[in-house]
């Protein structure tokens, strides 16, 4: 497999994001237009109908297919495709866009991720059912399955998770487009109503509508758009076994996380993620998902997350700020939009445009999506073209607890790494995808507890997929 397939070939030249929230008065098209036109403006695109060559969209809930986006933006007579890959849908759409540019198919590509779960008439997540065998279940119910085991092995507890929620709520107050803008305390988290143990209300991401868009180009065209483009350094997606039936699962980490991290660090030549990565957006559908990502992505040693949480390593002023905009926690998780929203945030951070939540001179930015049961992980790493001219304001990154990438970067990576690091600017952007939706039904609505209609309206995933 070629490891240089993507590196530096593609640049992000414009980003846009609508306000995430309960967008009752906005249609999917309205949100797509908000996000795309902001990205156009950011990229200096004045005539999208002429300048955009292809569109990749990502949505999990939409039943309208790629036409929804093409029609909203009136981008006709163009290749427009839709990607659906559970929670990594946005990242995967981006990955396709990057690959199409790297393949030399197009000059400029628009990537749009969006979803509109709030039009379904239920505030919470769908109770999903994949056929008879797989239980009616909620994402909280399956992401929590690492808790009993992790707590038992490493002595962590709900308080450690709570601090993650507190951090993200805080960061969310600094992000103009976030949904939840409220500081919370550890006590708030611990006392909130339980959703799926150990997740109380505040351990869960919110549920929102949203859209985000990025304009990407071949890197040789990037300077036509802006002088501080962000280069895509690496993109990966790694599938994993369904942890629910995988005989080897220890429920202490999610396997695809480690696999995707190993791959993307190798592509980008990263040896010490915690030192080298300046800012990260990781999948925090639930507080524990973020905690496991710290370890699985090599930000800290296995089992040490709670010390780092206590030390503030991942807070805005910490060594490696994570979820600087408040993450899925405060933006909510309109599935298709999330991965693209993360790239939006990372791009702003790399370009020094993140306002009150700006991290001091990050060079490399990582975004991470975890989807399915979870059964797939996507990671994108991007780098600012101007990175060399910046210096970190926090020179004293602690070097303790430096962890190699989980599955170990190959030793041959040393030279590669040296080469990459000596480059004036590193830029990566790496995306990974999510698990394949399985045959089954997505249910809208949940009946009253115990009432006969457990589910309101079913959409077969198969039908759904065949429509997209």
């Amino acid at each position: 497999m070629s490891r240089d397939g993507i590196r530096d070939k593609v640049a992000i030249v414009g980003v846009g994001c609508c306000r995430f929230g309960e967008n009752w008065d906005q249609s999917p098209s309205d949100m797509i237009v908000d996000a795309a036109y902001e990205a156009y403006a950011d990229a200096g695109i004045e005539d999208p109908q002429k300048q955009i060559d292809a569109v990749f969209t990502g949505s999990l809930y939409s039943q309208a297919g790629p036409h929804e986006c093409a029609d909203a933006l009136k981008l006709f007579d163009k290749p427009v495709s839709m990607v659906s890959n559970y929670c990594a849908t946005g990242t995967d759409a981006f990955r396709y866009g990057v690959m199409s540019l790297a393949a030399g198919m197009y000059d400029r590509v628009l990537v749009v991720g969006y979803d509109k779960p709030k039009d379904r008439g239920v505030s919470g997540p769908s109770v999903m059912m994949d056929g008879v065998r797989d239980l009616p279940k909620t994402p909280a119910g399956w992401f929590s399955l690492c808790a009993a085991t992790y707590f038992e092995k490493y002595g962590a507890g709900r308080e450690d998770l709570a601090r993650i929620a507190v951090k993200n709520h805080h960061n969310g107050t600094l992000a103009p487009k976030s949904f939840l803008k409220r500081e919370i305390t550890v006590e708030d988290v611990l006392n909130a109503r339980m959703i799926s143990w150990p997740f109380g209300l505040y351990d869960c991401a919110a549920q929102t509508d949203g859209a985000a868009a990025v304009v990407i180009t071949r890197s040789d065209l990037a300077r036509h758009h802006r002088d501080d483009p962000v280069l895509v350094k690496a993109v990966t997606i790694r599938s994993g076994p369904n942890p629910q039936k995988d005989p080897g699962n220890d429920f202490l980490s999610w396997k695809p996380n480690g696999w995707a991290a190993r791959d993307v660090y190798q592509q980008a030549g990263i040896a010490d993620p915690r030192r080298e990565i300046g800012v990260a957006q990781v999948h925090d559908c639930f507080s524990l998902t973020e905690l496991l990502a710290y370890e699985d992505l090599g930000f800290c040693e296995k089992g040490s997350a709670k010390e780092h949480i206590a030390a503030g390593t991942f807070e805005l002023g910490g060594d490696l700020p994570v979820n600087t905009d408040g993450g899925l926690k405060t933006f909510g998780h309109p599935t298709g939009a999330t991965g693209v929203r993360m790239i939006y945030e990372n791009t702003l951070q790399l370009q020094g445009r993140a306002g009150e939540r700006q991290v001091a001179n990050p060079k490399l930015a990582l975004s991470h999506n975890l989807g399915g049961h979870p059964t797939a992980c996507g990671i994108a790493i991007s780098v600012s073209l101007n990175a060399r001219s910046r210096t970190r304001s926090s020179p004293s990154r602690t070097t303790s607890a430096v962890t190699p990438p989980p599955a170990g970067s190959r030793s041959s990576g040393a030279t590669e790494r040296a080469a990459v690091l000596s480059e004036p600017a590193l830029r990566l952007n790496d995306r990974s995808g999510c698990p394949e939706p399985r045959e089954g039904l997505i249910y809208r609505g949940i009946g009253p507890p115990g009432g006969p209609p457990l589910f309101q309206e079913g959409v077969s995933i198969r039908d759904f997929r065949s429509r997209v």
Partner: protein
Amino acid sequence: MVGIASYGAYIPRHRLPLSAVGGRAAREGGPEKAVAWNDEDSVTMAVSAAVNCLRGLDRKCVDALYFASTSYAFREKQAAALVARALDLRRDLRCADFAGSLRAGTTALRAASDAVAAGSARCVLVVASDCRMGAPSSGLELRLGDGAAAFLVSDADVIAELDAAHALSDEIVDLWRGDGDAFVHSWEDRFVLQEGYVPRIVEAVQSLLEKSGTHVGDYAKVALYGPDQRSLATVARKLGVAADSLCDPLFGRLGNAGAAFAPLLLAAALEGAKPGEKLLVANYGDGADALAFTTTEKLLKLEPRRGVSWHLERRHPVANYDHYLKARGLQTAEWEAPAAPGLSATIHFRDRDNDISFIGQKCNACGAVQFPVQRVCESCFAKDDFEPYRLSDRDGRLVTYTFDYFFPTPEPPTVVGIVEIDGARVHMQLVNCPPEETKTGLPLEFEFRRIHQVGGRPNYYWKAAPRSSD
């Protein structure tokens, strides 16, 4: 010699204190009744009773399965076939549903004995299971309970030989449920007792005694169907049944379990019997049945099984009436049940070994057990080289868990976990397992349950339960 070779019972763990009916505060220690919970019905109870009945026996010996019940979700579509599949019985099985009458259980028992006597089957599994409802807060609601009893009828290793039987049929509209009726209707009690229950039961038993040349005093145990304590006492008095031989009708503990009621009393009688005792069971419904048995030495050889007393010990009192109403779907819902077509019948059919029989596979190349059935080995990647491997009667172990408060259930939270069964990992709901008793490593066993009702049809699957001692 034709008779009963084995028996098993199932009584739901949930007990509704009668004091709670109508929404009053429940009093501990008062009379109660066993109630099927939202994931139980006559089919799931039948499977559990049958599993108990077949314990220690080769399931392949069963030639026919008779399912007896007045409460099954389908008017058209056999329950026996579903129960047989859940039990992973032989495919060349004769299956029949006995329905429509409270006598269905004893009628099926006789039909089974006839088949064995006639030599057309050697082993017939009879399962009587019922789950009827009286209208909320009605007198019938106070009286009806739920449960199931199973018997293996055979001509080998018989623990209780069938000596004689008598049946009589009558036309009377006393208790009935029309098409689509959720609740049992009853004509005036006094009429039902005076013209129906009392004279018919007495007549059936007297005819049996006459036919077999026995006296009621010959019977160590007399198990009589009875709608309530007083009418039962009337019948016992008329027949001259001595107080110490009259079987406890379990009023205030079980409730009238319909088609499974008399069979459950028979199972209870077998549990406490000694070899060489005579047992008499009488049942009522559109006429009456009476059957006489004599227990044999083989009774002592039958390994202990979960019978009536085991189940009666195992109680989970329902905290309030509201939970019961929710469990039985008796609360007005904001939404009508969706008219969705439900799960694909094609997929249900294709996956029936996995879902209904809970059969996984064992890799011939590396020996790894896995679930569900897959083409490529999860462990060694060998292709299409597996043996079926039944998981339903193995021991499991809880790997990890969560308590889901969002999943709709009458008594949240729902305990959900990853269960390891001989190396296979399965994501399952847990039953009979309060959060405070849930811990990693917990030993588990498996129960057939309703998993959901998408499309208005019950869909069945297995759940894990903490392994109980016998």
